């Protein structure tokens, strides 16, 4: 009986091993694709941030002002948090949600905070913690498409223009290596020079210390500034989402790998136990036979 039990356990663990292995392989393939997308868009995004920085310097010295660069008195803050739809991805969700929750508590001192949760895990987390969500976005995978991100960004910019919110933050995870991803926050609006600097340093490891040139704008400066900023931020947000998705898969891959290693270890232990039990049983049987034989003599 004991033998059978152990055997069942071995089978079970081996099944889990197979499952995690399959999941790891799937994640690895997905990760490879997403990392490629994310890494390929990095040079563009670096330029985007550099241009935004030069624009923010430019509009500081010129007469043309764009609302996107001006901080206003804060009444309402919008926070977007991006987590995953599915579980089994290690600390990925916990890291980003912890950071977001901590900072939301800080932000609440400044003004009213509204949250848009992207991904099932984020939605569940904030609901459980008792937050009122302004919006739940559950088709997180759809955001690999640029059109979807454009719609979202346009909406954010419209809300900001209508003065619905005075500050917009976006929380997501940045991918560095399969072993290392960092949760971070992007200040979507208003754009501040020091934030742009920080972003540039973080994702590209470079610092720009150039003076803004005196730009010519075609057609008009006002038109360009408004349209350009939203267009450039679309790139930035799209990129951030790609990075986050890549991080999710990387995190899942590592979690599955750990699970696989654990399962392997357990199987090894169980097999040893199985042999011991079998040996014990045989010894007992032999012992029985010999004693029976002795008795019949």
């Amino acid at each position, binding site marked *: 009986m004991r033998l059978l039990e152990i055997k069942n356990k071995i089978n079970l663990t081996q099944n889990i091993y197979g499952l995690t292995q399959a999941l790891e392989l799937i994640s690895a393939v997905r990760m490879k694709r997403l990392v490629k*997308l994310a890494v*390929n*868009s990095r*040079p*563009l995004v670096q*330029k*985007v941030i550099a*241009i935004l920085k*030069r*624009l923010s310097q430019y509009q500081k010295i010129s007469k043309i002002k764009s609302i996107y660069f001006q901080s206003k008195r804060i009444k309402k803050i919008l926070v977007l948090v991006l987590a995953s739809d599915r579980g089994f991805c290690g600390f990925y969700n916990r890291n980003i949600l912890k950071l977001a929750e901590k900072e939301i508590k800080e932000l609440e001192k400044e003004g009213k905070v509204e949250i848009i949760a992207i991904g099932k895990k984020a939605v569940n987390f904030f609901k459980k913690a008792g937050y009122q969500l302004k919006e739940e976005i559950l088709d997180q995978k759809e955001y690999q498409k*640029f*059109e979807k991100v*454009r719609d979202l960004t346009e909406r954010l910019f419209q809300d900001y223009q209508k003065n619905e919110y005075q500050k917009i933050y976006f929380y997501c995870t940045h991918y560095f290596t399969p072993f290392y991803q960092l949760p971070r926050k992007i200040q979507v609006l208003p754009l501040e020079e020091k934030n742009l600097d920080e972003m540039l340093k973080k994702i590209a490891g470079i610092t720009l210390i*150039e003076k803004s*040139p*005196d*730009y*010519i*704008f*075609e*057609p008009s400066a006002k038109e*360009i500034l408004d*349209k*350009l900023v939203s*267009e*450039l931020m679309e*790139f930035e947000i*799209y*990129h951030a989402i790609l990075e986050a998705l890549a991080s999710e898969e990387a995190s899942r891959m590592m979690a599955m790998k750990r699970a696989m290693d654990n399962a392997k270890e357990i199987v090894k232990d169980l097999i040893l136990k199985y042999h011991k039990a079998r040996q014990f049983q045989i010894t007992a049987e032999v012992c029985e036979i010999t004693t029976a034989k002795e008795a019949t003599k």
Partner: protein
Amino acid sequence: MLVNILSLEKVVYQGEVDSLTVPGIMGRLTILAHHTPLITFLKKGNLILRKEGEEKIFEIKKGVLEINPKEVNLLVSLTSF
């Protein structure tokens, strides 16, 4: 002058060129070295790079052109979005 042509998918072109012709929304522009700083949008059309008599042509759907004293940046989308 140094020209960077970047899209979301890849770095399209990066290097020194003699001149560059782009489809700006206000009309076609040819840019030579030491152009004044400029920002404008690009519309659908061809980018033409010239370098030592050779021409390179890229088709774009839309984009942004930024000229600063150091370099010329073109952020373009090759596919239609």
